């Protein structure tokens, strides 16, 4: 075999030795270059001794409304860092620092050990230090070796309390969040979205941190930024453009504030775009992004009205009479009633089983057909319709209409609400612990049935748009730092199980509510535009009833659907409907200059 021949071996040996010599020569030349030719440069670098890496926080992306109004931005603030190498005794230094910052020395010591990345890597001790404190440290720089300040962006919510539930807030990443961060994108102390859009769109809003190289001397003294090594610029987070209409949101939120607590949600029935999402009481999101004063924090957390809680998606209420539309639809779809079906006349009360049930109007409504019963919101009519349907048909219809399911809005923490069924009652009261007359209360939207204001807005939008159920969305597009646009497309998640003819019947009723002489929400009527709506009063075992009004307009091809709930305010027609009307007026003034929306009937 050739391979084993001594001559071949000899050649291979020579090739090997030559190749290795070449490699070594290359290394020697490189070493020569580094140590003798450009040795001076390195020597200088070594004397000034080298580089320390300081991260530069990326500003988070802006959040804007559909007209370009900036709703969430950033402001510069001072962050305080410490380089452990320069500190002789960390414990006594922590005590000194804590004294100036008016904090617990233990807390400062913790931040040092948690942020430790080596003796030369600066540790962030505190964000958003006020200017006075910065001055104090700078004046006493000799007493505080190793302390430095860096300007970093801090989240700013310039609208103060308004809209706070929509964007939520940001805060420093917790240990658990760091643990879950499989892709290693966060370091301790990094800011992350904790609630609302800030959390939902975190990956787009956060941006990418940069870094800069700071030279320090052999003694550890800082000399400033390295000149021959360019800093890596941080990449600003993507901009989030919302479907929200800030003017409408303002009206809704301010009107709600005047009335106490509650929620308003407005959607475009044509694509599920959210125009308003108001929840009152609200809170100041700035509280969480900067320095949180103990008192302010306690005030928010101990408030019995729970201002941090977004009622639009987390608040569950009985829908009250607004449910009658769906009880009616279930009856129509199951051929239990037709448009002009009547039941026993309303005499103000009626007995089911051995219990009397009252109509809201003590004098009674007399004999009404389906449309009339919707217009006048006659309880007795719907009690009888509900009993005819029975719990199973009613409950199945509700589930098919996506009651009791999340709408899929682009916000974290949405709740499902509840549609009770026979199984639910079996579980709750035992197999024989309840009667078929439980459906009586449910059919007018009281009892165990629970909805969120957002769900009701979505479902009324579907009543108006021919039955299409959209997943509502706050964001319309994301504009990246590079200018790329990511559009967030409307998403259809289902449809109402109601035929077009039956939808028309329901709409007749909805229109009557605002136009008929006995309609319960005539205050919400507009000139030249038909408004379809329904009032409701949700019984509240803990206090005064909640007032509801849900509507859409124009009746044909609606452009806006609004759900209003005012907590503990009594009747929907007198409290919630006027609020909805203010929004409608503003909406049509803003978007439909061709139509005159001014009220047809004076209040």
């Amino acid at each position: 075999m050739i391979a084993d021949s001594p001559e071949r071996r000899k050649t291979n040996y020579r090739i090997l030795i030559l190749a290795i010599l070449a490699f070594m020569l290359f290394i020697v030349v490189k070493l020569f270059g580094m140590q003798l030719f450009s040795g001076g440069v390195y020597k200088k670098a070594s004397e000034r001794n080298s580089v320390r890496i300081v991260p530069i926080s990326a500003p988070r992306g802006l959040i804007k409304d559909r007209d370009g109004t900036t709703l969430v931005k950033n402001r510069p603030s001072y962050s305080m860092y410490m380089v452990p190498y320069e500190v002789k005794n960390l414990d006594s230094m922590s005590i000194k620092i804590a004294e100036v910052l008016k904090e617990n020395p233990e807390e400062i010591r913790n931040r040092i050990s948690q942020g430790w990345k080596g003796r030369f890597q600066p540790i962030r001790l505190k964000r958003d230090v006020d200017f006075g404190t910065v001055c104090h440290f700078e004046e006493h720089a000799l007493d505080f070796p190793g302390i430095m300040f860096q300007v970093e962006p801090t989240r700013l919510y310039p609208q103060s309390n308004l809209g706070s539930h929509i964007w939520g807030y940001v805060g420093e990443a917790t240990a658990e969040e760091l643990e879950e961060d499989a892709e290693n994108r966060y370091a301790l102390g990094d800011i992350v979205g904790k609630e609302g859009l800030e959390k939902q769109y975190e990956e787009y809003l956060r941006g990418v941190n940069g870094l800069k190289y700071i030279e320090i001397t052999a003694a550890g003294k800082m000399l400033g930024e390295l000149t021959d090594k360019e800093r890596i610029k941080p990449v600003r987070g993507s901009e989030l453009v919302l479907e929200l209409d800030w003017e409408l949101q303002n009206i809704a939120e301010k009107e709600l504030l005047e009335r106490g607590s509650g929620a308003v949600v407005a959607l475009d029935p044509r694509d599920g775009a959210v125009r308003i999402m108001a929840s009152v009481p609200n809170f100041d999101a700035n509280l969480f992004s900067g320095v949180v004063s103990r008192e302010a924090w306690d005030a928010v957390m101990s408030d019995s009205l729970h201002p941090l809680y977004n009622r639009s998606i987390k608040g569950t209420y009985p829908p009250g009479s607004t449910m009658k539309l769906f009880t009616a639809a279930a009856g129509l779809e199951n051929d239990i009633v037709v448009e002009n079906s009547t039941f026993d006349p309303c005499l103000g009360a009626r007995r089911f089983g051995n219990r009397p049930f009252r109509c809201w109007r003590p004098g009674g409504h007399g004999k009404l057909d389906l449309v009339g019963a919707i217009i006048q919101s006659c309880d007795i009519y719907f009690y009888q319709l509900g009993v005819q349907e029975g719990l199973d048909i009613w409950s199945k219809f509700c589930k098919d209409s996506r009651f009791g399911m999340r709408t899929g809005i682009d916000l974290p923490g949405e709740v499902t609400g509840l549609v009770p069924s026979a199984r639910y009652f079996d579980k709750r009261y035992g197999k024989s612990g309840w009667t078929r007359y439980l459906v009586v209360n449910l059919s007018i939207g009281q009892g165990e049935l629970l909805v969120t204001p957002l769900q009701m807005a979505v479902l009324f939008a579907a009543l108006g748009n021919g039955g299409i159920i959209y997943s509502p969305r706050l964001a319309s597009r994301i504009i990246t730092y590079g200018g790329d646009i990511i559009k967030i497309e409307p998403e259809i998640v289902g449809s109402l199980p109601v035929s077009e003819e039956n939808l028309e019947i329901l709409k007749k009723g909805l229109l009557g509510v605002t136009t008929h002489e006995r309609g319960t929400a005539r205050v919400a009527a507009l000139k030249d535009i038909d408004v379809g709506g329904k009032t409701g009063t949700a019984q509240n075992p803990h206090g005064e009833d909640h007032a509801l009004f849900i509507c859409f307009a124009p009746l044909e091809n609606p452009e806006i659907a609004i759900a209003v709930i005012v907590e503990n305010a009594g009747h929907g027609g007198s409290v919630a409907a006027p609020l909805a009307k203010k929004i409608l007026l503003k909406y049509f003034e803003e978007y439909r200059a061709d139509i005159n929306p001014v009220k047809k009937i004076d209040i």
Partner: protein
Amino acid sequence: MGKTFDWSLFVAALLLSIIGIVLIYAASYYSLQPETKALSLKQLIWLGIGLGVCAGIYFTPLKIHEAFSFVYYFSIIVVLIILLATTGGVATRWFRLGGFNIQPSELAKLAVVLAVSRYIAFRKIKPGDLSWIFVILLFISVPAALVLVQPDLGSSLVFFAIFIAMLFWSGLPLTKIILIISPIISLICAFHWFSWAVFFFLLLVLVFVSRLRISQGSFFVTVNLAVGMITPIMWNKLHDYQKMRIITFLDPGQDPRGAGYQIIQSKIAVGAGGLFGQGFLQGTQTKLNFLPEQHTDFIFSVLAEQFGFVGCLIVLILFAWIIYRGFAIALKARNQFYSYAACGLTAVLVFQAIINIGMTIGLMPVTGLPLPFMSYGGSSMVFFWASIGLLLTINRNWQEY
């Protein structure tokens, strides 16, 4: 002993080991942790163990190692599997034994060299038949894969260095060796369509001129075509952070926080050394502990900073001498098994020395391979002294068939 004992090889290795211990002492001198300060003493103990192993091998008849080479091989495979299994998927490279960490991948290098030498020395081949290459590839791949998942990319690359060296020593023409490693070249070229097109054209030329069998030729073409097409697809499926990891491995400057930081610091230390260095225990880089791994992977930068170009040159000459002796012994040995074993062991030394020094001066990616004889680490010390033992005894028995 006398004439048959290669004193120059032994002394060169001993000098490197002692210089290593001195440098470890310097690197840990300013450390505040007592464990770090004790490292040079620990390394001295390891040198003693290494010399013992060297002597043990030197005085054991070579034929025993030849006979047991496959046993060694399968034992070490079992050990690697146990290491993987006992840690329950948690990555680790070490067994803890007493107060010391044992790194089985170092022993695996020895076993692989012996087993492959044994196989290749006794193989029966027909002209033109290349199937023996795939047997060797299998020998190499199993431990390489087991080490790779530890994860220890550097050590698994060492196995492929052994593979290439053995093929070359077997007299396989360079063109064929290039063909065998061509899928790896294809993988690298596949990141741009143009570079890949050029590569593929050259491959076709190579297949044509090396006059392979049709089946062999089409095999290489198909494999390279497949690699070239799959790579971009796989790459696009990776997450950004995964891509980033690969990019920073190949180009540490892209990641100044991690590997890039070490390279910057190491280069400053090397450059600051100048002609004669800043002096023993001097040098700001070492003093200030800028390099977290300076007593292990970056020991050469400590040498460069404190003893300068002259110190580096001395160490390089010592390495060159050991390498020269290693290959000379491989050439001289009449027994095929001895010859291949000498070549394979020397190849490991060459590969690790060049990769490590290259990394220190910023020519090579950061792989975490120790510098032979000098980096802190017991298993590595023992392995290289075992290699010296084998080379010495092969030298003594070169006339044997």
